[in-house]
């Protein structure tokens, strides 16, 4: 716990002063649009499909967009850290659900495939 623990009950933090200006919001929007344009552009470049670089590149760009919106537009970069921890817990749990379900289903498929191969 940091200085928040020192805050007396009833004392309210002032969020508004910490929020970025409109110019920052517009710059962030331009960055987000540029990243989206790059995502779509690389989808049309065959080299990314052939080399296997497409999925990692799209994943990185998507994560950058996600973090940018959450950080700047949802103000998690500027707000109290406890809001950040709350949301990050949800995101980590969601990522765990996606990973667990995908791995579970794939493992089952591999076992099924192996049974087919061995004739069992």
């Amino acid at each position: 716990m940091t200085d928040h623990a020192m805050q007396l009950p009833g004392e309210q933090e002032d969020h508004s002063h910490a929020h970025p200006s409109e110019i920052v919001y517009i710059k962030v929007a331009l960055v987000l649009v540029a990243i989206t344009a790059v995502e779509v552009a690389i989808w049309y470049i065959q080299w990314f499909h052939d080399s296997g670089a497409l999925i990692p590149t799209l994943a990185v760009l998507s994560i950058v967009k996600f973090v940018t919106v959450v950080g700047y537009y949802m103000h998690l970069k500027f707000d109290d850290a406890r809001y950040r921890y709350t949301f990050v817990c949800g995101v980590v749990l969601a990522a765990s659900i996606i990973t667990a379900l995908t791995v579970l289903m794939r493992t089952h498929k591999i076992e099924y495939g192996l049974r087919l191969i061995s004739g069992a």
Partner: protein
Amino acid sequence: MAQAVATLEQAHGAGEVGHEAEHADHPHSSTGLDSRKLLMWLFLASDCMFFGSLIAMYMIYRGDAERMYLAGQGSGPVPHEILDIPYTSISAFVLLMSSLTMVLALASIQRGNQRGLRVWLGATAALGLVFLGGQFYEFTSFYHEGLGLTTNIFGNAFFTLTGFHGAHVTIGVVWLISLIVVSLRGGVRQDQSLNVEIAGLYWHFVDIVWIVIFTLVYLIPYDKVETVGQQAEQGFRLIGLG
């Protein structure tokens, strides 16, 4: 209830109503955090898990649909035949722009600019409606091309995931329009900007979910993902388990 209100007014005096309203908008809490904002973050965290489950199901079922189709089983159409990347890119652009107009609405009310608030909230709601119209057109065209909710497991997973996202957008648009109406009645003051901020959190969440859906549902080709499973299968064979 009426007696309680009368007692409250007597205790604080009629002249302090504005001050009272201000405190009602920023209730005290032992954490120093605003309870409503914390509640919204908790809701968004739980909604992440909800969408996480739907996305996982989509990823699994879409791969199955593609594989069954290639094996001559199951019915089409399948994702690579039907998904329209340029069209969906425009939808993604529209939703990104709506996030910008939403933060501009918040910045306006924080400066006490009521007109700016209504203009930017109206723009956000309008962009949300454009997105919903685009989704309706996409769903309709998919249906005419033979993909319904029960056509195959891809259709089932796709319509469930994007449909729930569309439902979230619809709720967001209704919320924004309600805020505009309340603002027109003078119900959103500068010291009540948290009401707009909380609506904004919900709206931006809808946007970040679409960022994930756009990548996982539309852009990532699942034949590439399937090769990971195939490589694992080959690995089993190599070590003598196959």
